[in-house]
């Protein structure tokens, strides 16, 4: 009896491990391959730098510095988490869109607008009690971002305008809006370059280490909430159904248009919060060059995390670690390897992910999930067919 039970449990465990492998194999392999490519790039760069002996171990030195800078001690670890937090929120914003069959390239714009909302309210409330200033600033940031997601959602639902096109355009509008706000109404008089005032009491409290702000916690909570929404609620079922098969969703009496608007608004909210925790937790003020890549890195995080909240957390941690460790890598290799190497690695990870068919064939992988579902959304996005028709 007990033996049978034990073998049953064993079988289930094996089944779970198999599922986990099926889901995680491709991202993991992509990461390893990208690190190898990064190493080749390092070696190649040595060849074109004159007057130095060729050092075969340089990639190892670089990666070990990257590791030390991101995980070697409490401060590096906190730095990693601090870099990862906005990527978690941004990754959720893009991943939620993927689940509904939407390609939300607009995370960048929603991120910027969210930051603008948070910094505006934060400055206004910089002397109020933190218990009032912080929630209201976050709320403003979330709502600004949500509004920036709602617009393309509505345009798609009403007219079929494709979200890829509208969100890209809104990214530019957002960037220009920030530049205008920082140099205009929010500009601190007397400063040499455009910069806003400090958010004062609206700044997020430090919870861990030297600068581990409360936004890290917020990002984790958001991941739990999104996971709960997607897999535990009926609304999440609707979102996933619309994403997987819009015709079946209509057949089931769901309202794909409504779901599109709702999902884009929620995605905007998440990206807006992402911008908010950067401005309230890290910079405490805003300049015209604020947070230029988080929104785009979020797309990579969502892809690497397979649009799954848990996966997104791990993907964001990886990207956060590379961001956090990059400066030390540059210092320890005496400026021979610029911090931008991590951009090369990140981009290469994405390339391998998207080229999953090639990898699966070359490595004879079986039982590995057929690529990243989200890439289907991307390809579908470009070949037309709007969700709502």
């Amino acid at each position, binding site marked *: 009896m007990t033996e049978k039970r034990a073998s049953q449990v064993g079988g289930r465990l094996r089944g779970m491990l198999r599922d986990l492998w099926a889901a995680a194999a491709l991202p993991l392999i992509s990461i390893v391959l990208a690190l190898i490519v990064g190493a080749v790039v390092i070696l190649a760069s040595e060849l074109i730098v004159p007057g130095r002996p060729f050092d075969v171990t340089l990639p190892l030195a670089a990666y070990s510095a990257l590791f030390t800078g991101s995980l070697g001690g409490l401060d590096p670890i906190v730095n990693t988490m601090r870099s990862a937090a906005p990527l978690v929120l941004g990754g959720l914003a893009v991943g939620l869109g993927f689940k509904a069959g939407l390609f939300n390239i607009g995370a960048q714009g929603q991120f910027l607008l969210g930051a603008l909302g948070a910094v505006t309210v934060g400055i206004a409330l910089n002397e109020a009690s933190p218990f009032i200033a912080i929630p209201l600033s976050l709320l403003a940031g979330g709502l600004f971002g949500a509004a920036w997601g709602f617009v393309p959602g509505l345009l798609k639902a009403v007219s079929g305008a494709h979200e890829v096109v509208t969100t890209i355009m809104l990214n530019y509008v957002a960037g220009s809006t920030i530049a205008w706000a920082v140099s205009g109404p929010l500009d601190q008089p007397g400063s040499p370059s455009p910069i806003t005032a400090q958010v004062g009491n609206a700044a997020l409290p430090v919870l861990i280490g030297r600068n581990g702000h409360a936004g890290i916690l917020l990002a984790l909570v958001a991941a739990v909430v999104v996971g709960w929404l997607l897999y535990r609620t009926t609304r999440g079922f609707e979102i996933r159904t619309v994403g997987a098969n819009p015709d079946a969703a*209509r*057949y089931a*009496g769901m309202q794909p248009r409504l779901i599109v608007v709702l999902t884009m608004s929620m995605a905007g909210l998440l990206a807006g919060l992402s911008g908010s925790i950067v401005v309230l937790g890290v910079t405490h003020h805003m300049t015209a060059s604020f947070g230029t890549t988080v929104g785009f890195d979020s797309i990579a995080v969502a892809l690497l995390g397979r649009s799954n909240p848990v996966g997104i957390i791990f993907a964001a941690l990886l990207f956060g670690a590379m961001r956090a460790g990059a400066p030390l890598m540059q210092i320890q290799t005496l400026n021979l390897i610029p911090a931008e190497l991590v951009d090369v690695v990140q981009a290469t990870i994405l390339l391998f992910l998207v080229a999953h068919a090639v990898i699966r064939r070359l490595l004879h992988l079986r039982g590995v999930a057929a690529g990243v579902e989200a890439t289907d959304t991307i390809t579908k996005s470009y070949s037309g067919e709007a969700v709502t028709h």
Partner: protein
Amino acid sequence: MRGITKRYPGVLANDSIDFDIRPGEIHALLGENGAGKTTLMNILYGLAVPDAGELLLDGQPVQIKSPHDAIRRGISMVHQHFMLVPVLSVADNILLGEEPMAGPIFLDQGGAHRRIRDLGSRFGWKVDPDQKVGSLSVGWQQRVEILKALYRNARILVLDEPTAVLTPQETAEIFSVLRSLRQEGYAIIFISHKLYEVLEIADRITVIRRGKVIGTRRPAETNEADLAEMMVGREVQLTVDRGESHPGDVVLRIRGLEVKDDRGQEAVRGIDLEVKAGEIVGVAGVAGNGQDELVEAIVGLRQPSGGHIELDGRDMTHAGARERHRLGVGFVPADRHRFGMVLSFPLTDNFILTDYYEPPFARGILRNDEAIEERAERGIKNYDIRTPSANVTGATLSGGNQQKVIVAREFEGEQRLLVLDQPTRGLDVGSIEFIHRQAIIKRNAGSAILLVSAELDEVLELSDRIVVMFRGAIVAVRDGRTADKNEIGRLMATGAEGRESGTPAA
């Protein structure tokens, strides 16, 4: 093929199967969905590698590693879903991958076109190599597929359910083509689960069930009932005993319904129709005569442009799909992959696709996984759905089992109206028998049933009343028990009677 064995996780798809084909022969491969026909052919065509067994070609053991390999050795496959590029011309489709070169750069188009025309004329086909494949009828597309195979010098032709998409006339034509191919010495493997077709065309019939060869027969020494029993493993009633119907009140009343198709053309032109509780009304018609639009308007997926739809006396012309479902409308859609299921979702989610928002499957805004699981287990048991578990995705099931999932879902509860659109298309006899019997049970329990089918036999067999649709209008109404098959067929093809007597009220 000798001793072919192929194992997939959880299933033994082929269990030491022996199968052979000779030149100048049509060998039919008969079996239920999921019996292993497709697996066997995939092995022959290099799409799957057998775990055991060997392939012999002209007596020599061969290994076929890819479709390319198979084609090189003269084995060609005509798939059920055509592998054609609609925007390319007939010639381009045939030449794809085998481009004839005149010199190093230029295509030898003239020569290739001539060869294609010659090939076609062997069967009396007037082939226009420049025509776009997308503008051809389904029957002609299939001929292009066959030409493609012949152009590649195939000696063995595998046809996977070639008649599933054809009208009876097109089927007759393709049969004559197959006969002339046989005459010329081609070896043809004909996969089907339509018994009468197999008996008509094949020289030998091999039946497989659950991965094993049950037996090989010649048409002369067997009959439909015998073959059906071999396929299913028990005696099968090929015609359902529909019994007496006792129609009650009118459930569905349609008056002057007009519906436009996707291109804005009038597809349904002023239809009047009533379906009573406890009766099955069959809609016969050649595909594309407005049936799809009629069905979509009835279930709330398409807005009518005129007329009224009433359910139990309540106007629901403009009600949404959700509201109609709540009022007791069940719908088995013709395109089960597009509408009926989410293939990437587990069966559990597919079982509750139309009821997910209601208790017991929802508690407030939360899903109730226990109730969902329980619902799926019950459906799998009651409808004999062959699946390793309720948690595998819909895509892993065979067509027949997918359809059973949909039927199990839509037949649940006390339906007022069931709309069955091609409910058994592409299914095997066992599944067809099962679904037909369920429909009769629902009728006897007092549901009104509207059956739309391109299979005239199905309509004749089940319907208490038959209406014939032609160019968006109902051109004739007949009693289901006394209707004459030839007359209905003529009405479907010409709509002749309707034009003389106008649209009769149902």
